[in-house]
């Protein structure tokens, strides 16, 4: 079982609000092997970003376990956690707010090393230059500031900052969503190339299904804090099972003409994650909902080569 690099079990993160408990992440389970990419998709409010942050303890989980190379990350002391941070990294979505505007490119990347006491200043500078070359940043930008760079380059700085520590697992929190399509393609190619060369494991969080399909080996679909379907990328697109997955896939506008779309337009809006409905959380919008969905919550069960949480597949 534990050939996997990362094993997430029963991960929960709840936020207390004045209207009740907000179930942002509610019992998430998955594992990830070295060199693998797990795509995590869902719409706003489904909890995918919170999941990424909870795994890294940037937002302390309410319950659950996260096993990294067999060690439970959530139970580590401060010192051990600091050591682990070099191996568990994150690339943020917004290249405009994830870089300190007062630090130069060199300082931003070097900071990761300095904070962990790695090398002396000349060794660190060498390492910074190395990693800049790896992510495709020109050396002349060493002393540039974020506001002088475009979105694509800033995102490369964000990636360099994460990779300079030589991590094994990287959470990619919507890393290309804020970028134009052409730059997006450049960054995706970079990420895939680096994964091939260095064997990084990615948790790729995104709401853009075409992008996720392109880069992921397996994909997990989230809805209101729960995973409703996990399968490998080909199966998910060729043979989606959960009604939400089907609706999601049918909603994607495809840049091709003459496609006959049986578009499933869901009724209503995503319900609030505060005090979620009993039974299946998707029942309010599901075209196939019945009595059982009202009463009983479906569990994630194996179905063919996927896992689905839906009464239709039991």
């Amino acid at each position, binding site marked *: 079982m534990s050939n996997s690099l990362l094993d997430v079990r029963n991960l929960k993160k709840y936020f207390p609000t004045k209207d009740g408990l907000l179930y942002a992440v509610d019992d998430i389970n998955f594992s990830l092997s070295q060199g693998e990419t797990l795509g995590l998709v869902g719409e706003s409010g489904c909890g995918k970003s919170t999941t990424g942050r909870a795994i890294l303890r*940037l937002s302390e989980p309410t319950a659950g376990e996260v096993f990294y190379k067999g060690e439970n990350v959530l139970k580590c002391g401060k010192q051990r956690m600091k050591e682990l*941070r070099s191996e568990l990294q*994150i690339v*943020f979505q917004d290249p405009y707010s994830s*870089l*300190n505007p*007062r630090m130069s490119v060199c300082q931003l990347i070097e900071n990761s090393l300095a904070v962990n006491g790695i090398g002396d200043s000349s060794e660190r500078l060498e390492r910074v230059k190395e990693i800049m070359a790896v992510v495709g940043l020109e050396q002349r930008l060493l002393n540039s500031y974020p506001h002088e760079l475009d979105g694509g380059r800033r995102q490369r700085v*964000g990636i360099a*900052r994460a990779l300079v*520590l030589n991590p094994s697992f990287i959470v990619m929190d919507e890393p290309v969503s804020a970028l134009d399509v052409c730059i997006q393609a450049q960054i995706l190619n970079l990420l895939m190339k680096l994964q091939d060369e260095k064997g990084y494991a990615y948790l790729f969080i995104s709401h853009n299904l075409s992008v996720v399909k392109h880069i992921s080996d397996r994909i997990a679909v989230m809805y209101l804090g729960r995973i409703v379907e996990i399968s490998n990328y080909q199966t998910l697109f060729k043979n989606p099972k959960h009604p939400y997955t089907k609706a999601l896939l049918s909603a994607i506008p495809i840049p091709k003409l003459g496609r006959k779309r049986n578009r499933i337009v869901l009724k209503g809006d995503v319900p609030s994650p505060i005090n979620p409905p009993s039974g299946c959380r998707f029942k309010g919008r599901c075209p196939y909902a019945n009595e059982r969905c009202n009463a009983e919550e479906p569990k994630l069960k194996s179905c063919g080569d996927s896992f689905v949480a839906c009464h239709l597949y039991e």
Partner: protein
Amino acid sequence: MKNSNSVFFETWVRLKKNKVAFASLWILLFLIVVAVFAGLIAPYPYSMQNPSNILQKPSLKHIFGTDQYGRDIFSRVVYGARISLSVGFIAVGVALLAGGFFGAIAGFYGGWLDNVIMRCMDILLSIPSVLLALAIVAAFGTSLPNLMLATGVSTIPGYARLVRATILTIKNQEYVEAARAVGTNDFEIITRQILPNCMAPILVQATFGVATAILTIAGLSFVGLGLQPPIPEWGSMLSDARAYIRGYSYMLVSPAVAIAITVFCLNSLGDGLRDALDPKLRD
């Protein structure tokens, strides 16, 4: 922080465009030079009395005239610059450090610590500042350090609130989270990530603060609770000049103009800095 190279330069360029603020900056620098080199600039020691030369109108020998003890007013104004500016800067500096420290902790850690600190600040704020200054001076005497304390103490809550508010805004920025994700500890996050980005509003407030401090101490000296004679504080010079207002009004003019120019320049510079530092006010 060397980091702010390019931001500093940009700010400088924008400040230059505001002619009044830029001129004020130079006037203030001039005043600081005067204050520092008072000993070389003033032709006479400020306390040198000359009974045969009392109440002389401005002349070539005494540019601003002499006061009721025959002391050269010009020299007294020059030394007075040293007093006023140093009290102003030190009072603000101390208030900024104290207020900033408490504000940073309150903003960063939140929770009960935030509550306790800010309620203490509220209490301090509820005491009228002039009264507080008077009370401190009356209780502890009128030495220079006490006066700096008196003028500074009531401004501490202002800086605490400012720093706390800026920290609250910035601590949730993604780049702070990013710093955390690579293992940066709290102290480094506050000092290297957050505070440099708070500098702008603090600088502006501090500039106005110096102006206020100068006026406060002038006010205290005017009512006799400031520095004692023969120390040439502008406010006490004004107070002395009151009795001689008929016939010897020149005694009033020089310290009054000195205060006015200094305060005006500080305020204009503060305004100019606020505009130059605000990224939203781009053309």
